[in-house]
Structure formats: C-alpha cells, structure tokens
C-alpha cells in the first residue's frame, strides 16, 4: 500500500518534527521506520482493586509482529486499548517511535491502526466505500491520498465487489475484512489487531498475512491478540499474558 503518512508528517521546515521523523527514508518504507518501535514500560492498570496489568513491559522492534495470548478476560484488550490511547495507564508509559499517545496524540494516532474485537465500528447504512472514505478523512489524508488509500484498501482486502454495497448487508467475514481495511487504510506504522481472525475464511487470513508482510517490508509492526497463537509465519515472538504480566511463549 502507498505510504501516505509521509506527506502528512514530514515537511521541510517543520520545527516540531520528532527525532524519529528524520527524512532519508527509502522509497516505499514508512517514515520513522528507522525509529525505535513500540515500547511499553512498567504499565499498570487496575480495575477497582484488581491489577489487570501489573508493571508490564513489551517492546516491538520495527519490521516485526508479536502475538499476545492468554485466557479470556486476562487483560489483552485492555493492553491494546492502552497502546491505542483509548485508556490511560495508571502508571508506566507507552511510546511509539518516542511519541506518547497522550502528549503527542495526533502524530501518535497517525502512526496507529486499530482493529477492535467483535464486529462493531462500521456505519451499517453506509456503503463499504463510504465507510473507508470517512476513515481516510478522519486520518487527515489529503483528497488525492484518500482516493489512493481507499482504492488500495479495497484491492488489498478483496472488497471490489462489496465496495458499493451497504455494510449491514455483509456477512460477518466480509465485515471483518472491511474492518481490517480500515485499520490498515492510512498506512500506519503499528497496527493493533484484537482477534483479527474472527469469522475469516482461509482467503481472508491470506489477505491479512499478505498485508502484514507488506507492513513488515516497510518497517511497520503489528500486535496480534487472540487466545491462541495464529499459524502465521509473519508472527514472530509470542507472549502470554497472565496475572498482569507477559511471559515469552516458547
């Protein structure tokens, strides 16, 4: 997919640029691709008195993907929501190429794609194309970037025949492909996938695999959360979340 974030983030004379935003990025790679990746340090989150995440640490280097597993309700979704900036940690910090989800919200979110668990998050009465176009605008892409991003997403997730149909008339698997297209649409640097394989057939899984491979090629990262480890060669390290902490899955 085309690299849209570059024209949004890296402008000559932009005095607010982050060190990881330095130019000289090879064509086709993601700006900041030489950055530090995702760092989650000493993150604690309590629901009432229960520490669902307890001094948790995680690092995802550029160009890699990690699986985070664990039993139901162990805190995988909470972890992803903290990394997505939807929930603030009680303690600890999250950074993506040195950017904070709270202090550098806009630049952080430009680098982030998020697929929540379940099948929600689409405007049922809008067409697939209108859903994609809206999200491209919310990602602050320019008009020409929007058109290219939407066209590329439709192609990458096999949505050509569905693009002009309403979202509420899709099957669950088709909906999931649209939701995945939204997560990858703006060429994010890090994509958070909460149970992405839900309702997907083999073809759908192969589309994710191809997209993740392309993301890696450009220096991007993914975190794949699901109870069981997916059988995808693109997934590198695996971690199991238990009692608030991650342990490496061997």
């Amino acid at each position: 997919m085309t690299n849209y974030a570059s024209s949004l983030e890296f402008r000559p004379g932009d005095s607010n640029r982050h060190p990881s935003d330095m130019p000289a990025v090879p064509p086709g790679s993601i700006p900041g691709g030489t950055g530090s990746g995702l760092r989650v340090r000493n993150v604690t989150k309590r629901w009432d008195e229960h520490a669902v995440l307890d001094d948790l640490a995680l690092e995802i280097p550029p160009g890699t993907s990690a699986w985070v597993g664990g039993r139901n309700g162990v805190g995988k979704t909470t972890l992803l929501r903290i990394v997505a900036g939807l929930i603030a940690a009680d303690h600890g910090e999250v950074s993506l190429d040195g950017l904070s989800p709270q202090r550098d919200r806009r630049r952080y979110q430009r680098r982030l794609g998020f697929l929540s668990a379940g099948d929600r998050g689409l405007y049922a009465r809008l067409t697939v194309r209108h859903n994609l176009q809206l999200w491209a605008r919310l990602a602050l892409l320019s008009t020409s970037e929007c058109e290219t991003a939407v066209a590329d997403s439709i192609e990458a997730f096999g949505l050509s025949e569905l693009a002009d149909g309403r979202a509420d008339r899709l099957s669950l698997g088709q909906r999931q492909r649209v939701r995945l297209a939204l997560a990858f649409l703006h060429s994010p640097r890090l994509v958070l996938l909460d149970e992405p394989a839900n309702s997907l057939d083999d073809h759908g899984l192969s589309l994710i695999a191809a997209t993740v491979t392309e993301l890696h090629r450009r220096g991007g990262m993914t975190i794949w959360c699901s109870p069981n480890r997916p059988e995808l060669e693109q997934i590198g390290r695996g971690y199991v979340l238990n009692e608030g902490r991650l342990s490496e899955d061997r």
Partner: protein
Amino acid sequence: MSETVSTHSAAALAVVRRDFLLMLSYRFRFVTQALSAFFGLTLFYYISRLVDVGGSISTDDYYAFAVTGLMTLQVITATLVTPSLTLRQELVAGTFERFAVSPFGAAAGIISMMLFPFVYTLAIVVTMLAFAGIVFGLALQWSTAALSIPIGGLAALAFAPFGILIIAGVLLAKQASVGTNWVIAGVSQIGGLYFPVTLLPGWIQWASEVQPFTPAVDLMRHVLLGLPMPEPAWLAVLKLVFFAAILLPVSVWALNRSIKISTRRGTMIEY
C-alpha cells in the same frame, strides 16, 4: 498550517457528508419530520384563535409569536438533544472508537457531529415558515428577513456550548435522554418560546436573562415577523455574542476534560 486547516476542514465535512448520507438512507425522514412540524404549526394556529388578551395583541400576533417559538425549539433540539443522542448511538455501535483513535480526534469529531443537525434543521425551519405562510397566512417582514441568517448563525454559536456541555456529561455519565429532556422542558418554560417571559412569576423571570434562547427568539421574531422587541435589538445581539464568546471556549475545555477523565477511567468507549 494551511494544510492542517484544510485536512481538518475536510474531516469535519466528511462527518457532515456521513450524516447526510445516513439521512438519505432513511427515505422518508425529512418528510416525517416536516409533517410533525406541520402538525405543531396547525395545532398552534387553532390554539391562537382562542387567544384574546385585548390591547394590541391579536390572534395573528400570537400565532406569529408561537411559530417563531416552534422554529427556535427545532434549533434548540438540534443543538442540545440530537448531538448527545447521536453520540450515544456512536458509542453503542462502536463507531465512536474510530474517532477516538483517529488523528482527527474525539473532541473534533464530536463538534463536527453537531454541524449537520443544525443545517438540516434550518431546512426544516424554512419549510415550516413556508407552510405557515402559505396555509395560515403568516406574514413575513421581507425587509429584514435576510437578517435572520446571521442572527441564526450567531444563535447557533451561542446555543452550541450547551450542546457541547451536555455531550461532555454524556461521555462521563453515559446517559443522554434524562438531562436533555429536562433542558428542553426548562427552556420551553423560561425561554419565552410559547408565551412572553413577562407572564412568568417575578421570582423566576431572572432565568430569561441568563441564557441565550430568549434573546435569540426575540430577535428572530423581530426580523422575520416585525414583532416588537422587549429590549433593544443591539442588547439582544450583545447577549448572544457574550454567550458564544464566553461559553464556547469553556464548553470545549469541559469536553476535553471529560475525554481525559473517561480515558483515565477507561470508560470513554463504554456505553
């Protein structure tokens, strides 16, 4: 800077377009809402035939008074009620999450969600005026009617903070209908929508001085229908400017605070 403004404006317009497309997907929404408004206009026409207070107020004067009140209530509903209900729907449908994780952001998304209901309501209000004029002979004062456009825009800016504050509350409390029903009922009582505020007991008349709805409806009555103002027009305009200038920044600050608090609590996308 200009690119930032342009991409943000385009994002806001995309939200307006979304709402327009959703409205179109319900084929009879405009017709049914216009019909509801017409029923209200018809009801008040016949009620106005019963009004006989003597002096200089005729039944037609009261009808004109009530029509402007009904129109203003549409705008108030669009500004105060519709956005909070829309946010509730977004939370339940999981679509608000997309705003929250977007570079455009939750606060900008919420404010953008207020644009289409206002524009849509203007179309309803114009239709109401046309209906009242054609069917019931309501006479517009054409010499000043055009002034209703900038006054309507100013009124929207003065009303919007109340809608934003309600939304900030919805993000924290996850309830919309209870608070908004109270606000609408209260504004109908003290805003001078259906009867002059001078008829209220003395101890409550101060309430008409501390909100923008009364001066807005008075100005609309004056420029659209030529009804007399209870205070100088410039003073009513000044009140609207004051409410917009003071309350808009305060309400946006409150909205950002509620987003921060709900992010800390972990409840922002809960419903």
